[in-house]
């Protein structure tokens, strides 16, 4: 494996959550169940009394029309669906990868939001406490609240945010959207 692929893979691992917890839990449950069934079978073969139910009793019970049986089935379906979801859902972390040839760089979305906020507010001339920014997978939202009497140029702020994102070129790709609130606040 060459280094670029390795770094890409590391970046992917860092931007996505692993399923190890889910698989550990499921496998532990499965092995406990298998051990229990094994114990019951051995006890039945030796002619000893069962721990809970003997294999013969269990077979009869599953063939019966007991009231709890459909509910047990329903529980199994729900559990299975949850596992399928866990397997399919991308489980992304709030992070973006930066392109770099010599190492794998991963940045928290919060850090990206902070950088976007700073760029936008410096370009627009808005004080620090009047800027909000958030970064999701494909969108960086910046909202500015100007000071009364000092109109803010949405275009300048948007351009600064775009420039930053173009320079960073994070993946997955981010688009900035700067909004300037219509109402301002007196003083700064």
């Amino acid at each position, binding site marked *: 494996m060459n280094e670029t692929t390795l770094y890409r893979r590391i970046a992917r691992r860092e931007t996505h959550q692993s399923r190890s917890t889910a698989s550990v839990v499921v496998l532990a449950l499965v092995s406990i169940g298998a051990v229990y069934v094994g114990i019951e079978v051995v006890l039945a073969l030796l002619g000893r009394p069962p721990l809970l139910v003997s294999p013969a009793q269990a077979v009869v019970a599953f063939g019966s029309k007991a009231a709890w049986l459909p509910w047990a089935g329903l529980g199994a379906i729900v559990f299975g669906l949850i596992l399928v979801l866990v397997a399919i859902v991308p489980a992304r972390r709030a992070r973006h990868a930066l392109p770099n040839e010599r190492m794998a760089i991963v940045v928290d979305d919060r850090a990206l939001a902070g950088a976007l906020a700073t760029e936008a507010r*410096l*370009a627009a*001339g808005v*004080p*620090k406490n009047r800027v909000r920014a958030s970064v999701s997978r494909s969108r960086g939202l910046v909202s500015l609240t*100007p*000071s*009364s*009497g*000092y*109109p*803010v140029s949405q275009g*300048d702020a948007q351009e*600064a945010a775009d420039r930053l994102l173009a320079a960073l070129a994070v993946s997955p790709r981010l688009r900035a959207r700067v909004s300037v609130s*219509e*109402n*301002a*606040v*007196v*003083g*700064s």
Partner: protein
Amino acid sequence: MGTASQKIAGQTSVSARALSRVVTAIAADELRVEPRDVAVRLTDDRGLLAVSVAAPLRLTRLGSPDAVPLVQRCESARVGIRNRTADVTGSQVRTVAIRVTRARILAESRVR
């Protein structure tokens, strides 16, 4: 207010209180009364400043040759407050409202 063209780190911020004191001084000067008699309230009007002033007004003696109609005095004071606030603080004013609470009728020869 730092702009993109001036690349100096840091920023200037003017508190609402400082701003309102400045506007109070300007309004007092325009209406020719003491600043302590002037009450100024600054609010936001769609991004620009809205100034509301409650103050007494100094009038020339009634019947004097250079007496100016009251409404005209207030209008010119409003324009003056708007322009001088913009000059001094650099902020844009959208509306100026003046409520005249009292009138002081005095000879202005001494003031002038």
